[in-house]
């Protein structure tokens, strides 16, 4: 395999011509999002440039403290994103989400890097990209599940009230909603597993092939990361909802928010 060709800055700047094409189409179609296109392009460039410098520094000066800081900030960001998008949950539910994301995210990252890849948990070359994929997907899954669960709670208010009056336990009333939210959160991952390799070559595999890795090695990485993503989504959503829903009623079997 050949090593990846380095792109010179002049060559790189040519790609921005494509943005002008997008701009022209937007103008023609009267899509009034020129400002957004501009801001998005600038942010994309600045954020990735910054990330590039930070990662270069960390790779040249590998130290456990950098890895810990990176993982901590990534998990905190993931928790913040989920909680800020789902304002309906109470304090206990927030704790359940935070703990589930942290434990399942870290657990799967450690398992994947040390057991599957067989590298040190403090090796930035492996930990940083892999943890990004694992925790990022956990965040999306928990976000989707919590949103689905909150929507069910507000849609099914009358059903919940009727069943509670009938002498049904809150667990029995809420569990079908928990299971439905878990299924909703898992489906995108399962569907992407179905189409993988046929519909598209996934991002990580494409990146590895471009940088000169043998496709057979890239495939092993891709299959294992997909399974790890499936597991982390399942565990983080399961933990968030199963511990979270128990905060919605008290020992007198009363709903705490109806």
């Amino acid at each position, binding site marked *: 395999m050949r090593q990846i060709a380095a792109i010179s800055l002049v060559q790189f700047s040519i790609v921005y011509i494509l943005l002008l094409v997008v701009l022209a189409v937007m103008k023609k179609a009267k899509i009034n999002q020129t400002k957004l296109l501009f801001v998005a392009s600038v942010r994309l460039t600045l954020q990735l440039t910054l990330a590039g410098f930070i990662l270069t520094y960390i790779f040249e000066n590998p130290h456990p403290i950098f890895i810990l800081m990176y993982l901590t900030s990534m998990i905190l960001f993931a928790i913040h994103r989920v909680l800020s998008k789902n304002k309906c949950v109470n304090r206990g539910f927030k704790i359940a989400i935070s703990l589930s994301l942290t434990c399942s995210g870290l657990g799967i990252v450690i398992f994947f890097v040390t057991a599957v890849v067989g590298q040190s948990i403090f090796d930035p070359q492996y930990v940083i990209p892999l943890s990004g994929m694992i925790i990022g997907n956990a965040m999306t899954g928990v976000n989707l599940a919590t949103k689905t669960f909150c929507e069910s709670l507000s849609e099914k208010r*009358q*059903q919940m*009230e*009727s*069943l*509670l*009056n*009938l*002498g*049904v*336990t809150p667990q*029995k*009333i809420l569990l079908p909603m928990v299971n439905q939210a878990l299924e909703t959160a898992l489906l995108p991952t399962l569907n992407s597993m179905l189409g993988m390799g046929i519909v598209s070559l996934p991002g990580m595999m494409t990146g590895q092939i471009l940088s000169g890795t043998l496709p057979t090695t890239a495939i092993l990485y891709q299959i294992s990361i997909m399974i790890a993503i499936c597991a982390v989504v399942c565990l983080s959503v399961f933990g968030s909802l199963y511990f979270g829903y128990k905060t919605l009623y008290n020992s*007198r*079997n*009363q*709903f705490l928010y*109806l």
Partner: protein
Amino acid sequence: MDIISLSQVVFQSMIRYPDIKIPKGKTTFIHGPSGCGKSTLLKLINGTISPDSGEIVFNGNNIDDIDTIKLRRDILLVSQSVFLFSGTIEENFKKYYEYRDQETPSKEHMEKFLQICRAEFPLETRCETMSGGERQRVYIAIFLSFMPEVLMLDEPTSALDNTSSDIIMSNIKNFSDDNDMTTIVVSHYLPLAQKYGDNIIALERSRP
């Protein structure tokens, strides 16, 4: 003999209830202006909400000492907001009985209670296609079919015309009397209370 009694019950520092006694095997109507806490009273009695202070006694026991699930099965509240699952009337009976871990009743049993509530529709009728009043009648019939010790109805005739209200209340009253069931009805419509109530409790808006 009283089956339920309330003494010095205050809810969320907003509503102070008078001492109330509900006689066993009788039909008690609760009447009063909106906002006086009629529906809240029913929720306090079945333990889906708790008072700040005071005591609610059911069959001689403080309800705090009774398992809440058993309490709600013995004192069944048919709330004002009707909920039916999507599907037929028969499927709704099945679903509600499943939630109570009970076997689906026979078709005759279902039809008997539908008849009491003046909802004599074929069991295959889909509930989504029914009017508000029809759904309310089916809903009451399903709850009544569990034959609780105490049946609490919150504005059971709110979506019904006067004739239907009259017939349903008459049927439920006869059924309760025949089966020694205690019935508590919240209604804003006083003539109905005067006609079918063995006992009428008038609540007033109060501040502690």
